[in-house]
């Protein structure tokens, strides 16, 4: 029923919509997959911290019926992008089950990227699959000569994305933390953060982690950018579904005004 038409897409900065073939999809840790898709236009244009909406199109009614936002974790010169997919509910489970040759409907690149300044040290703090945007960021920024540190926390060893692969993608080994101490350092990843001196801290992970970082940033006075998560309808600013509270009590759209925000622009009171 659904035509396989690719409608005229506009000039940058409008996102592109296309059916992208799956190149590979590998289980890389407990409940975690590395999904590579062929998407030359998105690969060419995506900036660190941007995301795609990924879904299965209009004939698919089971989850994901609505497309889901996923950070772009990697891009290759030959037009592939990589997503780090954690199986959470039924929607991500269906993405985890994608097989090479099958297609997903992509819309992207979307959202505002992390903003880096060359003069400053950059520390990325990743909780769980909040690692994804820092794979592309650390890799590309280091190759541009920026000093980037990567702290990566998981609950336990079985969930940790292969450190060798991380090193390959990012050009340096990450500092790994597990809450149960089964791999790397024992404790919360935020414990590893040394934010002294001129530094830009980037955070991506569970809200509780981001809140802890934001508390420290406020107390210690360092610059903090965070990538937030919220349910999304459209990903492009039409539905107003994806709001987060700003520090001055307004609603900001995670999809177009974020997902990366200055932590000081957001409200961090719980609930």
């Amino acid at each position, binding site marked *: *029923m*659904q*035509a396989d*038409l*690719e*409608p*005229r*897409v*506009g*000039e940058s*900065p*409008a*996102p592109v*919509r296309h059916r992208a073939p799956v190149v590979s999809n590998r289980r890389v840790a407990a409940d975690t997959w590395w999904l590579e898709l062929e998407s030359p236009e998105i690969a060419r244009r995506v900036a660190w911290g941007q995301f795609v909406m990924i*879904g299965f*199109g*209009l004939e698919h*009614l089971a*989850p*994901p*019926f*609505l*497309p889901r936002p996923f950070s772009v974790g990697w891009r290759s010169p030959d037009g592939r992008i990589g997503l780090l997919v954690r199986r959470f509910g039924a*929607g991500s489970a269906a993405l985890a089950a994608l097989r090479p040759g099958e297609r997903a*409907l992509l*819309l992207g690149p979307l959202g505002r990227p992390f903003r880096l300044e060359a003069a400053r040290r950059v520390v990325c703090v990743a909780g769980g699959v909040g690692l994804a945007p820092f794979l592309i960021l650390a890799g590309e920024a280091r190759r541009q000569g920026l000093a980037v540190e990567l702290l990566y926390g998981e609950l336990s060893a079985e969930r940790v994305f292969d450190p060798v692969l991380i090193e390959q993608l990012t050009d340096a080994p990450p500092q790994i933390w597990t809450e149960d101490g089964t791999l790397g350092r024992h404790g919360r990843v935020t414990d590893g953060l040394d934010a002294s001196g001129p530094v830009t801290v980037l955070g991506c992970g569970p809200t509780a982690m981001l809140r802890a970082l934001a508390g420290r940033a406020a107390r210690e006075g360092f610059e903090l950018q965070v990538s937030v998560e*919220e*349910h*999304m*309808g*459209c*990903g*492009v*600013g*039409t*539905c*107003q*579904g*994806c*709001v*987060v*509270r700003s520090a001055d009590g*307004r*609603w900001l759209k995670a999809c*177009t005004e974020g997902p990366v925000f200055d932590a000081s622009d957001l409200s961090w009171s719980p609930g």
Partner: protein
Amino acid sequence: MVSGLSQSVFGTEFQTPVLLASGTCGYGREYAGLIPLDELGGLVTKAVSVEPRTGNPPHRVAETPGGMINAIGLENVGLDAFIEEKLPWLRENLARAKVLVNVIGRTTDEYAAVVAGLDEEEGFLGYEINVSCPNVRGGTLFGTDEAALGELVARLRRESERPLIVKLTPNVPDIGVYARICEENGADGLSTINTFPGMLIDIRRRRPVIGNVSGGISGPAILPMGVYLTWRAARSCSIPVIGIGGIRSADDALQYILAGATLVQIGTSSFVDPAAAVTVQQGIAAFLESEGVEAVSELVGGLRTSDSAEGSAPAQG
């Protein structure tokens, strides 16, 4: 676009019968460059209220079986900002696609203020009045209160000579009653339907998923309800009806058209695939060609039924 797709209605010509639904296309600009907006029949803006509204806390959207729930809370920039920031883009960028402004209010006066405030402006064709709003007098929705609805439509009719389309609420025993009230009070058309009240619960947290507790259900799940209500509404009055609810293909749109819709709107499907509206109108053109039908207008209300079954309220089971 193929000429057979155009529809003459509301004193103008829509180049195709396919519009984007209110709340699912922002103020148009958000889709610029992504889809060829000006090749569509048109779009309906996000609701506009006289004052800005902040809307509901998150989560505002979530997936439901074959559809979605939303409780945006009618967040919008308000009349003044709409005129200053949103309308100019529509005026300057849409030459052929028609624009309807979706209007909300808490009182008849608030609705009237939006219509009066917009009426001299350029860049839009007319109004779609969203009556699925709680009336501060009484608490029920305008769209489920016969007296309040009649009064509202009559008042807005006095404010404007532009096309006045009332968007009906689905959860009523007989939508025909409300269709006739709109017609009798001067509405030029109807939109059927808005979302169904629904709720989604996170069983582990024992909390509603949606910040507002309940919300409106849209998407494919409501398609057969929308087709039915469009059919009932179209048979109950003689003003044109715009069919809305769960459309994701030309086949779906044609169900609405055969049921009596002159135009259709695509909502949730644009989230699933921004190209949905384009695909739908291309599919309608292909259907006309394959069936040897010259113009889509020939199909409006073309459903064939035997007379016996038509009048009665359907028993369930």
